């Protein structure tokens, strides 16, 4: 009986450990979304993140991402590239707090802090805050060789950051937000086969009018692959991904003399960004934990692929930490 108990305990531990490792790998691939989504729409602020969605067996997800982005080029609405002589550096600190509120529903919040440096000046300001309500529409309670796990979600972006239209700084260094609220619908499908994990995500959103901005709709689609390198280095995995973002043109209210107003049309934006990264689950030389700490390092470059329009382009290096607390 004692041996049976030990065997069962070992089996449970192995299952939990395997689950933890699986959760870490999924988290690693999910982390790419934080880089791909947080591109900062147009020139100055915006973007959203679903890097806080729980896609594994976690009950809570606590995450911290530090993005360091260098903006090197501006692309006009006609697709003409112009390299900047004066580069702009942006660091974004984003916090992800997500919790299961039932077996299949989860609620999350992601505030952010943005620091910009250009023209010898630096400014740090609050960015927009993301809210998330997700539902595991396709659970993987039983194994299926093809059917992925599917999560649908509603996300809201709250304009806690200042927009370029409220900016008091040259170069909009204090503009870290879009200036309006938006609501989005999205879906994420993830599947793990052997050492591979694939994640596909798509999201569409629309903004709410806030003078002088009359926003329009936009979407982001991403695909990423993660490969578990545990056979080489325990806890290590590598990821690569691709995301495409489109933001439709919108209108701006412009005040004229004698109280008259006119509407300006701002051109559409699109950008494609490949990314590659490494993640490591656990802390070296310490025993494997049921609730692992996962570290990520990801590089993304918006100037490599696609046909960007009406957007600045940057290269981003992201360091992230995730604390996953399993169910």
């Amino acid at each position, binding site marked *: 009986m004692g041996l049976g108990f030990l065997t069962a305990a070992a089996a449970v531990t192995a299952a939990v450990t395997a689950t933890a490792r699986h959760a870490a790998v999924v988290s690693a691939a999910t982390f790419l979304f934080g880089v791909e989504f947080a591109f900062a729409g147009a020139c100055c602020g915006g973007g959203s993140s679903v890097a806080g969605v729980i896609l594994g067996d976690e009950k809570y997800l606590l995450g911290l991402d530090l993005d360091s982005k260098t903006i090197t080029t501006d692309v006009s609405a006609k697709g003409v590239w112009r390299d900047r002589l004066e580069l702009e550096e942006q660091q974004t600190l984003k916090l992800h707090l997500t919790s299961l509120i039932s077996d299949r529903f989860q609620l999350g919040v992601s505030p952010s802090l943005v620091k910009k440096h250009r023209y010898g000046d630096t400014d740090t300001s609050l960015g927009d805050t993301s809210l998330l309500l997700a539902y595991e529409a396709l659970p993987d309670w039983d194994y299926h060789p093809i059917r992925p796990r599917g999560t649908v979600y509603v996300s809201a972006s709250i304009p806690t950051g200042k927009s370029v239209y409220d900016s008091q700084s040259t170069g909009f260094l204090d503009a870290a937000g879009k200036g309006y609220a938006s609501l989005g619908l999205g879906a994420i499908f993830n599947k793990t086969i052997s050492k591979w994990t694939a994640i596909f995500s798509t999201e569409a959103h629309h903004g709410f009018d806030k003078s002088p901005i009359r926003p329009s709709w936009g979407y982001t689609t991403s695909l990423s692959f993660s490969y578990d390198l545990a056979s080489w280095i325990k806890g290590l995995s590598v990821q690569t991904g691709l995301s495409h973002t489109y933001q439709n043109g919108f209108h*701006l209210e412009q005040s004229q003399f004698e109280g008259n107003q006119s509407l300006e049309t701002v*051109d559409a934006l699109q950008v494609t960004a490949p990314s590659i990264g490494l993640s490591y689950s656990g802390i070296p030389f310490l025993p494997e934990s049921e609730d692992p700490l996962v570290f990520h390092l990801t590089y993304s470059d918006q100037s490599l692929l696609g046909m960007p329009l009406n957007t600045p382009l940057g290269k981003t290096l992201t360091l992230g930490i995730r604390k996953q607390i399993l169910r």
Partner: protein
Amino acid sequence: MKFPFHTLVFLLLAISLVSCAKPLADSTDSETRTEGKSQNACKASLKTDGVCLDAIWETYPTETTVGSLLVFARSLNSDHLVKDFSTDLRVTLWMPSMGHGSSPVKVVPLQPGMFRIEKVFFIMRGDWEVRFQTPTDRATWALDF
């Protein structure tokens, strides 16, 4: 038969390495672009006011330094300065494609029909508009910075 994920990933990486994402480059230097037309050309026409606004760069801006512009309000029918031209001239910088402006400029009347526009600064390279507005009319000068 197992799905060849590794082949798919390899193809994805291979495509990303050979793809080109830079179809159009702007080879004209900033100085040539901001010079604009000859001194006698009309940069912006205030047709209601019957005024041609001509502008020349006193100091052209760079990515890190401000510039200044001299603006002459000439009659549309002749080359003479309009001496009774409104002193309430508003000038704003605007980037139409991205829907934002730049830091505010300062309009300094020098003599009737002549102004200096100071603190002209374009925060990024691209297509810009210098927008002139009087109480009765408005006009735009499009330029490439």
